[in-house]
């Protein structure tokens, strides 16, 4: 999953990016509203974390503009906690609201919930033919036994599982698993897919030659 963090406080955006990265997300950042809006409109993200007090364009403007084109889940981060502001943010199209200072763990949980809901899932646990994916703890079990996956591998499994039954093209996979700082070659995807097959079973991921991958149900 790929996340965009729009926040102007350098020390804060750095730690957010590091945390999300450690969690297995691909992270892009922007330090002003103009840059943030551009990136959000141009690429596909699974969630956007948006600070409201930004230079160039403030968070409200970014939110309003973004909502004209994109349905990506948006979580607002701000030091303004007045109820009127919260209501305004939610009504302008934000999906969730977190007041600064916030708890990193809580932020991560809310992001997970947003992404889950965006894919039409209600519960954090997905069961696919013996493989249980817990999106909350970001763990995978096969026949009840915990399977160790690297963050990238887990991200791949989670993405295909959330889009199960649908074909996911290689481009899409690339866009969702790597961020702008990654200059990896796209055949890294194949490597990850084969690693996952090794750990979870060959039939777990289906290949459509020349088109992409999917998890069959």
């Amino acid at each position, binding site marked *: 999953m790929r996340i965009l963090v729009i926040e102007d*406080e350098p*020390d*804060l955006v750095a730690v957010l990016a590091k*945390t999300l990265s*450690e969690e297995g997300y691909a992270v892009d950042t922007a330090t002003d509203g103009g840059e943030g809006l551009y990136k959000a409109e141009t690429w596909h993200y699974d969630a956007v974390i948006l600070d409201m007090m930004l*230079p*160039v364009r403030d968070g409200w403007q970014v939110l309003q503009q973004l909502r004209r084109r994109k349905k990506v889940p948006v979580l607002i981060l701000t030091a303004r906690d007045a109820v009127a502001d919260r209501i305004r943010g939610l009504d302008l199209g934000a999906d969730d609201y977190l007041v600064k200072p916030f*708890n*990193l*763990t809580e932020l991560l949980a809310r992001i997970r919930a947003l992404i889950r809901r965006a894919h039409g899932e209600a519960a954090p646990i997905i069961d696919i033919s013996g493989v249980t994916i817990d999106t909350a703890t970001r763990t995978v079990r096969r026949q009840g036994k915990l399977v160790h996956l690297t963050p990238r591998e887990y991200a791949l499994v989670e993405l295909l599982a959330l889009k199960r039954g649908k074909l996911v093209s290689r481009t899409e996979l690339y866009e969702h698993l790597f961020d702008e700082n990654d200059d990896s070659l796209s055949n890294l995807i194949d490597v990850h897919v084969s690693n996952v097959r090794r750990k979870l079973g060959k039939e777990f991921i289906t290949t459509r030659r020349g088109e992409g991958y999917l998890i069959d149900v």
Partner: protein
Amino acid sequence: MFKSMRWRLFLWHSGILTLVVLIFAATLWWKQQQAIRTRVDAELLGTARMLAGAFEKKLEPKGKKGNPKADDKAKAFKAEKEVEEKLARQGYAVPVHYLHPFKGKKEDRMYFAVWKGKGELLVASEDDFALPFTGELPKGPPLQKHIIRETALTREVVIEGPHGTRILVGKPTHKENAELQNLLGVLLITSGSVLLIGLAGGWIVCQQALAPISKITRTAEAISADNLSARIDIAETESELGRLGCVLNNAFARLEAAFDQQTRFTADASHELRTPISVILAQTEFALRKDRCASEYKDAVTASFRAATRMKSLVDGLLTLARADAGQMVLNKQPVELAQLVTESVALVGSLADEKQIKVILNLRPVQVNADPQRLAEVVINLLSNAINYNRPQGRVEVALDAGEGAAILTVSDSGLGIAAEDQTHVFERFYRVDKARTRQQGGSGLGLAICKEIVETHAGTLTLQSTVDEGSTFVVRLPTAT
């Protein structure tokens, strides 16, 4: 009750009205009584004098000839003819028209009596005339003075008649009394009505006039810290109460503005504090999520340190401003040589200037002021840092110190980007930043200029700004000189 203005006003009004009405009625009645008496007295006097004239001859003492029958003459006359006949029988030829007043019903008609000395009745118009009169006539020419006798039912006049006699003419006054009684009744009723209407009207007017005060009181009571936007409803603004309402509304508006400013300041302050706190929280939580290597910990701790330092300077600034607001800024005033202070401050920011490759040019004249050197240094350093930080690459900062018009004038000019006109008025406001991104990088909290202004103004000076976009800005500090 007596504390209420409405009641006091009403009671005063009632008192005065009642007094006026009573005086008026009493005066009227008394005047009327006087008029009636004067009329009656004139009538009686005229008649008495007329009688005196009529009896002049006949009352002349004639020795013993005409007198033996004097006692028998104490008879009452009943009718005009009778009177005439009686008088004629007694030898008094009194023309009829003189006797006109003495006719009529007994209870209405005038009567007279003439006597001599101490009680010798010579002639009288009534049969049953009694003679209790013993009063002395006032001295003076005869026939001019008179005595008035008044009883409940009659009024009489006594004059000195010819030849030492006394003539009394009187009349029953029940008609006049009735007239006066009537008048009294009318006056009482009218006064009563007037008073009633006047008092009622007075009460209503009091109510109307003072009702706005109750309204104002109630609205003012409703206005509190939670509800400062209520205003007194004023129908007309020209009257005294209307003006009072306006004045109060203006006071409330000023209070509301001051409260709003305070609220905004507090909100801004807490907002500013939240950001560095968020950094510390996020960085430390990240560091503790799992075991890490030393350099990661170091990064997290360094970032937290930066944020904590920002918080400290913010809190210091807030405290200074709060003290300034409460009028508690303590100044350690002493004679300060400004040129020296400026030179020292420039030295302190020297490394910053070098780092940014900014040239600092000094043009200082010696001038003394009475000031707190630490505070002043804060101001100078702040202005210098701003000039250096918000400058173009390889720009310049010019610092000039001069004296004139009893003031020391310090100017700090930079060759930066200038400040737009619409921002210039706000630049000294707390937390105001023209370009948020740049200030954030410098670590500025937006309080620097606000604090400078407070310090300068507490020293009875002024801090102003002149700026042109794309050319630069000049900050001017004016301080009263030591003399």
